[in-house]
């Protein structure tokens, strides 16, 4: 019997019953420390005494998508952090360059799947600037209304996920109830539930309809109360407040240095909002405030979103009252060929400034197209804010910055 168990060749065969695959695999487990390719990586992967690397993601419940974060921890304390991107890269910008202008819109949709309408709006506005198209006023009002609805849908979800990452399981489900109502509403307006593909060059695809308006009216009657009540579950909770207050403080200088936009910069006291700073569409005619907070910590970033939801409700209300009559699409040929040139357009999304930069070479396809996504910018802050805090705080900081991986990896 002993001869049967001796490996026949220089290598043990897996067909040999005397060889167990576990033994072979166990030998192959080694302490694999990645070799740093850059100075920063070399420094990161050099462990001092008592430190250990903890690999979070790309499939971790708290990384909101396929983000991989390598934590260097000393006990529970995070010494350093290294986000690793690229697990959701789809090459959207390159795909847009291979499609004509109309087709490119729908590629930008899934960039930020939480708030798709904004990802359409920025490139569409850039195309309109290239083509020098005048968008009908009714279309602008519909666009503003739909995007503000989408902003609310995104914010309620963000607030819920912030609470979920701090361990509360209920707020995210309340948030999803609101979001589901808004998504159904937008589905009756745009025809799709997640990736709306609603914006068109020179207008929108389809006018307001009765179904949408009746759903919107139903929802508006209780939305403010409901969202306020849902937020009240968490934002006065002592456990959450004690955890989030003073955590991950982001000051104004850092915000400006790191090109932070959106709620994150407004929570640090700087009232930067593209809708007011670089007005577009019909926002100059609308009456709304830019809420700011001065603390700059996770709690401020969380509470600021509650305030923004109220302002969005105000905007929707005004849009409904001031909605003009008229067409919703400008007259445009089926195949558009803008003159050679370049255009930049930015919109204020729920996470910050979405922008598109398009270069035309006179053909029916964009020559180059770049998309600026706020999530990518904000993810850099994780490296800045996290070291020195605990492992549990990493999730809180990441959730309060609210990056969406679809936008980060493009």
């Amino acid at each position, binding site marked *: 019997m002993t001869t049967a168990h001796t490996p026949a060749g220089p290598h043990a065969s897996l067909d040999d019953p005397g060889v167990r695959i576990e033994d072979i695999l166990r030998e192959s487990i080694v302490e694999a420390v990645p070799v740093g390719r850059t100075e920063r990586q070399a420094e990161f992967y050099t462990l001092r005494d008592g430190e250990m690397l903890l690999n979070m993601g790309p499939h971790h419940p708290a990384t909101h998508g396929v983000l991989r974060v390598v934590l260097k921890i000393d006990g529970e304390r995070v010494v350093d952090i290294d986000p690793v991107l690229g697990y959701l890269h789809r090459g959207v910008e390159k795909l847009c360059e291979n499609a004509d202008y109309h*087709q490119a819109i729908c590629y930008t949709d899934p960039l930020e799947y939480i708030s798709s309408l904004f990802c359409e709006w920025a490139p569409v506005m850039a195309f309109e600037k290239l083509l020098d198209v005048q968008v009908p006023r009714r279309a602008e009002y519909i666009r503003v209304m739909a995007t503000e609805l989408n902003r609310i849908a995104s914010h309620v979800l963000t607030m819920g996920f912030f609470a979920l990452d701090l361990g509360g399981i209920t707020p995210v489900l309340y948030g999803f109830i609101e979001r589901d109502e808004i998504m159904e509403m937008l589905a009756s307006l745009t025809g799709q539930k997640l990736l709306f593909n609603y914006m068109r060059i020179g207008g929108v695809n389809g006018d307001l309809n009765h179904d949408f308006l009746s759903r919107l009216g139903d929802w508006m009657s209780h939305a403010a109360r409901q969202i306020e009540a849902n937020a009240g579950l968490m934002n006065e909770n002592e456990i959450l407040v004690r955890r989030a207050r003073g955590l991950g403080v982001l000051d104004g200088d850092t915000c400006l240095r790191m090109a932070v936009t959106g709620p994150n910069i407004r929570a640090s006291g700087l009232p930067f909002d593209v809708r007011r700073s670089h007005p577009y569409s019909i926002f100059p005619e609308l009456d709304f405030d830019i809420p700011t907070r001065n603390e700059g910590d996770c709690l401020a970033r969380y509470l600021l979103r509650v305030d923004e939801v109220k302002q969005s409700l105000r905007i929707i209300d005004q849009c409904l009252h001031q909605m003009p009559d008229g067409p919703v699409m400008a007259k445009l040929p089926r195949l558009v060929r803008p003159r050679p040139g370049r255009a930049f357009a930015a919109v204020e999304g729920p996470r910050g400034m979405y922008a598109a930069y398009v270069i035309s070479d006179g053909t029916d396809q964009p020559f180059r197209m770049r998309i600026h996504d706020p999530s990518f910018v904000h993810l850099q802050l994780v490296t800045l804010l996290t070291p020195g805090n605990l492992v549990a705080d990493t999730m809180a900081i990441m959730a309060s910055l609210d990056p969406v991986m679809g936008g980060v990896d493009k």
Partner: protein
Amino acid sequence: MSTVPGSGIVRGMALTFRRFFEPKATVRYPEVRPEIAPRNRGRLQLLHDENGHLKCETCFQCAQACPIECIDMGGVDTRGRYNVHWGPAETYGERREEAALRRSGRPVPDAAFASFAEVDLGPVSAVLVAHDHDPAHMLGILEETQAAYGYLPVAALRHISFATGAWYAMVYGTASYYRQFRLAPPADGDPALAAADRRPSEASFLSALDAALGMGPRPAPGNARTGDAAGPRA
């Protein structure tokens, strides 16, 4: 935040307790179907008018506008409306070259669709007549068809299935079960050619030798490979 410690927690607990008795948001799906908005375009389907006729005119505009080209249709003409279908996957190959040209500026040849190419069905019809279209003689039919074409083209298999009444799955199963049948053109039918394929340097050497000796060109290697016996390709 209020001054009394714990009041926030108590208020949260009160909210969840109230929600315990409130009506629920769950939709019991198979019994209760959610209302789909009239504008919903989440589904590819052909619409009928009030007379029960298909509204689709087979104008291909939807397929042309589709950015990711997921719409593909095989239409006959606008009068034969009932023949409009958006059917099997192989019709995708019909417009494949054109689409590839338009999108990337170069054709994308795909060997996977070569086997669906049409062949001259004359030889296989003769074989079928000789066997009286009897599916019981399937082995013989297939052997003679292979003798006629050099391999078993998919079009011939389809024709055999159609003419004998045997299921295509049976015909294909028979053809793929026996060792002697080939479903692709023989790569090594001509030993010399195969050798030339494997050693291109030798082939170029031979041609250079021929040129130096003033001999005529050898037979072009391409003919036998694409199936000379199989007749012209469509």
